[in-house]
């Protein structure tokens, strides 16, 4: 395996300076053509509406020179790096350290997450951010069932989040039902909508499936906006009851938790409670998903992603298999939605736009489809990382975009691309990402 790359590295060295120079020259030429109008000529409307224009050849020259220099640097870097996909000779001790890190990262992350409210008790901002990250971890894990395991591209996942949130909000405000009764109801209702979405899209694959799910997400949002008598329309639902700790409210009153425990009331108690609540919900999602993968239904999901025709030849009912995937994913989305409603105390259709669907899907794809740990890491990077770059102000999006492009170059199948087998005879060996299919929808 090591001989061919060595040859190709030598070959590319042999190409040498002339090749790099030629490539840079072509890039510079393309830049010159592109930027000559975009940068070279500046046009503006004058005070009386006439066209004023002036040339900026200095800027243009600087831009072309940058491209020329940058192209040389990139080419040199590429030669230094070697061909993409080269299996590099990594010292064994580094390799074993990496393997150890890979094994250790999940428990370390879990323990750290449990300790976050203890460490950052006084930092409300960190706690709120933690709750937000965990919400997206849960949404990511829920969508992972549909996209990562069953290979059905769902662009309207936010619909189930919305159904869960509105289920809780409306049941709690209209009928006074408690959070702990509404939570399973929200999940069931969302699952029901998952099945309802599932039926019409069963025959669709790939791009067509993506478009219909996208439309479904928008339909749910538009219904919420326009059905004013039920949902309050764009005004949303306010005054949603806060969660109670199994009936004990987290309020400063005499019957509150603080009073009962005989400690001083602090609004942080509720935040900490919410943190552990979403952590528990997310871990439940994770546990159920891991269990389901090892059950026939989970294997059927993955088999469906690999080859639907073969599934049918083996007597697997692809209709119910797809519907259960949609329903399971939707149910977790519904739970997350109910949590979102109780945390915010106010929901409106603005919280359930397509951007949310795209964000959750990005988390799943970045994390590595099907990988639970990958999705958690991606949620942390996407939500936490986004907050981290807040100091960069308007460049935040730029930095974020560059980071994502780089990630997709180096890890095209997500942070954790390989697949862990669900059952083994002798030993479990990870399956390389280039064998695992993405599914055709």
């Amino acid at each position, binding site marked *: 395996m090591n001989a061919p790359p060595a040859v190709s590295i030598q070959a590319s060295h042999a190409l040498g300076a002339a090749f790099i120079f030629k490539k840079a020259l072509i890039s510079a030429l393309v830049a010159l053509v592109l930027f000559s109008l975009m940068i070279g000529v500046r046009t503006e409307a004058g005070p009386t509406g006439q066209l004023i224009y002036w040339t900026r050849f200095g800027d243009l020259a600087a831009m072309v020179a940058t491209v020329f220099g940058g192209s040389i640097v990139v080419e040199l870097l590429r030669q230094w790096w070697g061909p993409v996909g080269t299996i590099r000779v990594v010292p064994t001790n580094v390799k074993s350290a990496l393997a150890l890190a890979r094994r250790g990262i999940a428990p370390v992350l879990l323990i750290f997450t449990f300790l976050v409210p203890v460490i950052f008790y006084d930092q409300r901002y960190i706690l709120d951010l933690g709750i937000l990250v965990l919400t997206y971890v849960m949404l990511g894990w829920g969508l992972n069932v549909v996209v990562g395991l069953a290979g059905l591209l769902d662009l309207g996942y936010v619909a189930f989040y919305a159904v869960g949130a509105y289920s809780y909000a409306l049941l709690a405000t209209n009928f006074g039902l408690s959070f702990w009764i509404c939570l399973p109801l929200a999940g069931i209702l969302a699952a029901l909508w998952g099945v309802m979405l599932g039926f019409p899209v069963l025959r669709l694959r790939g791009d067509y499936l993506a478009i219909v799910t996208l439309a479904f997400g928008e339909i749910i949002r538009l219904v919420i906006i326009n059905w004013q008598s039920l949902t309050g329309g764009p005004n949303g639902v306010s005054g949603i009851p806060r969660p109670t700790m199994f009936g004990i409210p987290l309020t400063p009153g005499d019957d509150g938790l603080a009073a009962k425990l005989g400690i001083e009331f602090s609004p942080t108690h509720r935040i900490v409670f919410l943190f552990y609540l979403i952590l528990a919900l997310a871990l439940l999602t994770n546990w159920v998903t891991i269990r389901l993968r090892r059950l026939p239904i989970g294997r059927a999901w993955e088999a469906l992603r690999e080859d639907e025709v073969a599934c049918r030849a083996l007597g697997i009912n692809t209709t119910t298999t797809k519907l259960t995937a949609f329903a399971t994913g939707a149910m977790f989305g519904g739970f997350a939605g109910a949590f979102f409603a109780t945390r915010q105390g106010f929901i409106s259709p603005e919280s359930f736009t397509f951007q949310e669907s795209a964000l959750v899907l990005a988390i799943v794809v970045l994390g590595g489809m099907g990988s639970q740990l990958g999705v958690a890491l991606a949620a942390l990077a996407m939500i936490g990382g986004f907050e981290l770059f807040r100091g960069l102000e308007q460049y935040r999006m730029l930095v974020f975009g560059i980071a994502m492009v780089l990630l997709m170059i180096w890890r095209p199948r997500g942070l954790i691309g390989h697949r862990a087998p669900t*059952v083994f005879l002798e030993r479990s060996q990870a399956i390389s990402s280039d064998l695992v299919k993405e599914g055709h929808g």
Partner: protein
Amino acid sequence: MSGDHILSVDRLSMRFGGIVAVNDLSFGAERRKITALIGPNGAGKTTVFNCITGFYKPTSGTMQLTHDDGRAIRLERLNDFRISKQAKVARTFQNIRLFPGMTALENLMVAQHNALMRASGLTFLGLIGAPSWRSAEQHAIDLARTWLERVGLVDRADEAAGNLPYGDQRRLEIARAMCTEPALLCLDEPAAGLNARESASLSELLLSIRAGQGTSILLIEHDMSVVMEISDHVVVMDYGVKIAEGTPQQVRDDPKVIAAYLGTDEEEAIAVMESGT
């Protein structure tokens, strides 16, 4: 048609628009026997397979599967997955269709989906880890291991199916079909792309399946050494119609079969066609 037929195909026709892929085809596959369906490329063999296994709905004709207990099932009335689930007909594909990103063992576990779904109480018993589910799962793993041993892949059980060499993938696909515990096994060109040694071991495997499991086998094959060695009965198709039928020896000496395979002078071909129909 005499004998105990597990599958009786009667006047089967399949049209795609104006093209008649299969025309008025009748044949039977005997119980616990190996029936080969042969013919030149484009003769309509795979179309017949796709009708039998429910991937196509035939334009006309009937296909009746009779189980050992006398239960008769009309295949043309069942659709796709039910043919495997209820009629117990399993198939392999001309261009292998394994689950490449799953291990060999997982492939065989997926094949036992319906039995395992029942055992896992439609997932709910499995989710709580009920003892009955655990024992059913262990039983499924044991069955998979048995089949991996039969096809000589037990050492590679934990490797991704997509990583296995071509010949191993062919055998794994047969093992996967057998894990559905079929009454009739339909193999679409199982020896395609195999070398002489691999074809010989394939013949041995198919004969052992017939002897051990009592599974009836229907196969499409171009490799005549395999067909002549293991088939009990051969059906020859050309241009969507049956041109000959009989024991391997009878078929081999049939002038119409020779004409279909080797080609003849035009007049001779017309004479053969006229005498045939």
